[in-house]
């Protein structure tokens, strides 16, 4: 992703003959080398693009389409002849009867809102501080980056040591590990989602910081100088000069955060397997496979909900991105 399209080398130094001007003015000569290709070259190229495409499409897109198909069927998974087409029944059941579905949707929304409201501004704030060319900047950066490097599953185990009702850090510190005044961070349905979200935010802030740091590095230094000459203070400079130039980064951050919120799974699974209070769409789908009840059509219907929301974000974003790149 071009987080900083303004400084892309293609835009800065267009290779002569392949710039947009050449493309539009002389349509007879193809931009690429198509006219020079032998038949063998074409075959090689076909294979080079074809084989990876077949693998990707078969395992990702065909299965996504199969999810859509199965959402309109019931199937116990044993033999193809037990597939029965039931129309919209799975969805009807999902929206009206399933007691876990709407809480899961709600939790996914909370997840997104929490990530965008707390760790994202925090990441931006840290990035701005670290961008001030200070000593030990690398050391601080590393400390904030570290959770991004570690597996979500491992993060789940580490935070359990913090939240454990009997032996955990928090309860031990505040004396809530005695019988009688027990705070069950993992088991209490009013608390557990927030407890997990703190762990998720801990990781997300580091990730956002990296993205914003990259964005800040591409801000033209002369903008800052001009702003300083005009007598703007640090906050004014940030608000009216720096932040507006971070627009491309902000778009990326928004898309990344929505997708993270839809993908959220590992942490919750390690914590309490998505039991009461922490249901998520991803967890409901997975429980249909690794749980005892294998209701394939039903699980697929949830997957389709997830697919539709994801595509509603992914497609406009990619179209906008690719259009911008074509113009560059």
């Amino acid at each position, binding site marked *: *992703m*071009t987080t900083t399209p303004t400084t892309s*080398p293609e835009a800065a130094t267009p290779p002569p003959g*392949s710039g947009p001007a050449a493309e539009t003015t002389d349509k007879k000569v193809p931009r*690429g*080398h198509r006219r020079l*290709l032998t038949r063998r070259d074409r075959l090689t*190229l076909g294979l*080079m*693009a074809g084989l990876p*495409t077949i*693998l*990707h499409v078969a395992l990702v897109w065909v299965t996504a389409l199969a*999810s859509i198909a199965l959402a309109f069927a019931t199937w116990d998974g044993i033999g193809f002849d037990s597939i029965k087409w039931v129309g919209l029944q799975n969805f009807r059941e999902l929206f009206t009867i399933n007691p876990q579905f709407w809480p899961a949707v709600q939790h996914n929304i909370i997840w997104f809102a929490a990530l965008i409201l707390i760790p994202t501004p925090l990441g931006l704030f*840290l990035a701005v*501080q670290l961008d001030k060319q*200070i000593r030990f900047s690398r050391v601080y950066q590393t*400390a*904030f980056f*570290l959770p991004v490097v*570690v*597996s979500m*599953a*491992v993060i789940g*185990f*580490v935070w*359990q*040591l913090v939240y454990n009702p009997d*032996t955990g*850090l928090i309860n*031990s*510190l505040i004396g809530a590990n005695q019988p009688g005044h027990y705070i069950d961070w993992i088991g209490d349905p009013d608390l557990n989602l927030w407890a997990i979200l703190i762990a998720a935010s801990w990781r997300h802030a580091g*990730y956002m910081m*990296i993205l914003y740091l*990259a964005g800040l*590095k591409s801000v033209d230094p002369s903008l800052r100088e001009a702003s300083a000459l005009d007598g703007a203070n640090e906050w004014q400079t940030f608000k009216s000069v720096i932040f507006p130039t971070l627009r491309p*980064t902000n778009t*990326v951050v928004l*898309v*990344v955060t929505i*997708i*993270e919120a839809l*993908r959220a*799974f590992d942490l919750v699974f*390690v914590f309490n397997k998505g039991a009461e209070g922490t249901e998520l*769409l991803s967890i409901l*789908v*997975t429980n249909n*496979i*690794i749980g005892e009840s294998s209701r394939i059509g039903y699980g*697929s219907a949830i*997957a*389709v909900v*997830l*697919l539709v929301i*994801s595509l509603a974000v*992914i497609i406009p974003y990619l179209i906008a*991105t*690719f259009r911008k*790149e074509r113009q560059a």
Partner: protein
Amino acid sequence: MSTLADTTAATGAPKTRTPLRPARILLHLFLAGAALAWLAPLLWALYAALRPYGETSDKGYVSWPDKLNFDNFTNAFTQSDMTHYFVNTLIVAVPAVLLTLFLSSMVAFYVSRFDFRVNLFLLLVFTAGNLLPQQVIITPLYRLYLLIDIPGITMSGKLYDSALGLVLIHVAFQSGFCAFVLSNYMRSLPHELTEAALVDGASVWRLYWQIVLPLCKPAMAALATLLSIWIYNDFFWALVLISTGENMPITSALNNLSGQYFTDPNLVAAGALLTAIPTLIVYFALQRQFVSGLTLGANKG
């Protein structure tokens, strides 16, 4: 790709240091405090892991240590047969990283160096596929893996519960991201470079293998770092597509360990930290590649 060059140049450049002013000292105090607080959960896990279980159960977890040692680490390592699971992870991660880079660089070469009509669409398909949540495709994938018989290669005789199955899904999924990044990178290489070689009669394969690929080394290095960390850290695919405990990679094996030893949090803490060590080593050794990779891949969820 632009940001790669930007970040490495910016972090590598000598910094002009301003003299210490009170505001600076305050900033340092804040950052040092915040960094320490940030590491607190990991440090807490380390502290717990260094203490024997008996001591913590007598004195409580928040207490001064009588003795600190690595017994929990050695126990976690030997009792849970971690070497075995590390090897399982390697068997999946090494081929998956290499294959992903190989396949996605070919796609990137195709879409960035030639102007076929399908290029943009092809790239969209790859990139969008990588952004989907894994759960969208898991149910049919799971069924598909159970259907495909590959006798002799895997213990299960199927794609399900095999390292091969994991490699394939990692490659299929991650190649979307890599194809996108590499195609951007390749597009920034001058066109005459390959045009001249083509006029001289070089084959397309030679163009790719001897001219374009060597020039992509920086991007490939960044992607390789990122991919190894992502694939090593994978929890979900292995959780669903592997059923035998023996075949599990390290992260899902840790899940089993914690179920088995849930009464001894210190041991679980040691196991979790041991699991994280390889990623930390990769990160510290290749920090610059990792960070530049992440900003290359800002669209990655």
